[in-house]
């Protein structure tokens, strides 16, 4: 069976490798670089910058750890960017060598569907190649959303792509959109020394998360002196000699050296021949797929951002695996019931399962438990005490429904909860499991105990 994958992001490259492992003859078409947004313009480069930001933060606070430093702590942006680029290129090489190892052919160019069995490729070297295939996976991803009010120039008015390649540290930065991307960049730039002001239309920062988590994040942003203006709309953007002027509804004007726009992502569905072969799209232009990740046309699958579902790399990867199995004749269905999310703000945020409002919507009777990291010895030893673990459980069955964490290493801690929810475990199963001391994982155990009012390291309620 010949499989052609269009797009080598975290969806496409994973689909290609899985299909190759299952014995398919796989070709991948990619018009920029393997790894897609995630590796080249998203998850990985931002985390490299987060690591530099954390290093700066720690260096500035070495005194607290009993280390004397002589001299100033100065971020060197070109070296920070070099390190980031090195991290990315190492991972890119890794994917390319996995392709080689599994016999996946990579064609560098832009793929366009001609028929359900034929794809035209505009190659980077200018030539055109027509590839015949039995099945196709569309994994073209998404890009930063652009709306006309923001005249992007890549230098002063930036998308998240541009922000990853800035040449100097701006003195001041306005970020429009206090979602995941905006908040991650706010924390990075603040640590580099930039004065950051965020503007958000919604009532709070990262309003897709549990409201208690959002509130604590807002307080942590305030501690860092990141300004957050909420429930306010940008009406006007203008470049002047003294910087970018941003006019807000109500007449207020902000001025900063640069503007970063992080207002969402648009799906890459144009120019790939979807219409030519009649692939069905939804109201937002997303490719419609069934639970086998198959489109309305048999043998053509779509995965990742382009399907408009959950725009997360790890979801795209799982969808890619499901598509690969089905393309190879093994029946598998996608299951979105347990999708952990990780946000690399400072402190980190992670969640899995239901929020309280979702549990209510489902008509479930639930109870919650909380535990503050500052009650853990390990958090004090690390010098990172802000944050908490929140557990949501079914009141009748005691089953774990959701876990929401803000605090040190939240992105790593969440997976114990993910496995527990996937396995249908009860809160008591977590509470009754001995957790190693001293670890941050004790936070989940104590929050689980708190569901039944049995946590050890909390004062007696009044």
């Amino acid at each position, binding site marked *: 069976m010949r499989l052609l994958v269009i797009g080598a992001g975290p969806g496409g490259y994973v689909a290609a490798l899985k299909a190759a492992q299952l014995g398919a003859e796989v070709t991948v078409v990619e018009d920029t670089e393997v790894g897609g947004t995630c590796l080249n313009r998203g998850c990985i480069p931002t985390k490299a910058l987060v690591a530099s930001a954390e290093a700066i933060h720690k260096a500035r606070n070495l005194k607290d750890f009993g280390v004397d430093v002589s001299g100033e702590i100065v971020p060197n942006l070109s070296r920070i960017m070099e390190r980031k680029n090195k991290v990315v290129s190492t991972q890119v090489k890794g994917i390319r060598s996995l392709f080689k190892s599994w016999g996946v052919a990579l064609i560098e160019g832009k793929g366009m569907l001609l028929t359900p069995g034929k794809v035209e490729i505009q190659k980077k070297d200018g030539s055109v190649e027509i590839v015949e295939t039995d099945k196709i996976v569309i994994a073209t991803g998404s890009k930063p959303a652009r709306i006309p009010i923001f005249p992007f120039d890549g230098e002063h008015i930036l998308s998240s792509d541009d922000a990853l390649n800035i040449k100097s540290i701006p003195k001041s930065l306005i970020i429009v959109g206090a979602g995941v991307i905006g908040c991650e960049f706010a924390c990075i730039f603040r640590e580099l020394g930039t004065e950051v002001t965020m503007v958000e239309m919604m009532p709070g920062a990262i309003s897709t998360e549990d409201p208690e988590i959002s509130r604590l994040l807002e*307080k942590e942003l*305030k*501690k860092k002196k990141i300004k957050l203006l909420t429930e306010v709309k940008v009406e006007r953007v203008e470049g002047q000699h003294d910087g970018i002027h941003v006019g807000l509804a109500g007449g207020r004007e902000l001025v900063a050296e640069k503007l970063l726009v992080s207002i969402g992502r648009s799906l890459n569905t144009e120019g790939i021949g979807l219409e030519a072969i009649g692939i069905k799209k939804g109201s937002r232009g997303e490719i419609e797929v069934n639970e086998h990740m198959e489109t309305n046309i048999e043998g053509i699958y779509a995965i990742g951002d382009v399907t408009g579902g959950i725009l997360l790399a790890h979801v795209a990867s799982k969808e890619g695996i499901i598509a690969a199995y089905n393309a190879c004749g093994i029946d598998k269905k996608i299951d979105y019931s347990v999708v952990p999310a990780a946000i690399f703000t400072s402190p980190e945020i992670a969640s899995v399962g239901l929020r309280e409002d979702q549990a209510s919507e489902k008509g479930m009777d639930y109870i919650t438990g909380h535990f*503050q990291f*500052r*009650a853990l010895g390990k958090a*004090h030893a690390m010098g990172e*005490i*802000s944050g908490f673990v929140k557990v949501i459980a079914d009141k009748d069955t005691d089953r774990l429904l959701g876990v929401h964490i803000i605090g040190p290493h939240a992105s790593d801690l969440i997976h114990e909860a993910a496995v527990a929810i996937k396995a249908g475990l009860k809160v008591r199963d977590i509470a009754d499991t001995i957790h190693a001391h001293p670890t941050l994982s004790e936070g989940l155990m104590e929050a689980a105990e708190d569901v039944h009012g049995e946590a050890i390291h909390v*004062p007696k309620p009044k």
Partner: protein
Amino acid sequence: MNFPKDLKYHREHTWVKVSGKKATVGITDYAQDALGDIVYIDLPEVDAETKKDAEFSEIESTKATSSVIAPVSGTVIEVNEDLEESPEIINEDPYGKGWIAVVELTDPSELDDLLDGADYERYIEEEAK
């Protein structure tokens, strides 16, 4: 523990010092001792309204996060910005340099609900039992 006689006390462990229509507000020696080392205070904004018995600020110590309850209603006219960089001042001098805000009173009669130093001391002794 010290409870100066010229202050009025709220049962949620805040104090006020009244001068005309203005009231300086802070947390008591008992509160700072119970919280332990204070690492952050989320100060109210100038011009914010306070409502007696409602939260108007939040304090974080190394062991707890705690609401600060307004002892009086009014408008915040000044906040102690020194606490932003050095919140530990509250531990060191809760009735002096560790003041939190100055509030312009909207209802001075509320002061009658507050305790004097001796009553507050008896109240916390009772609570501790």
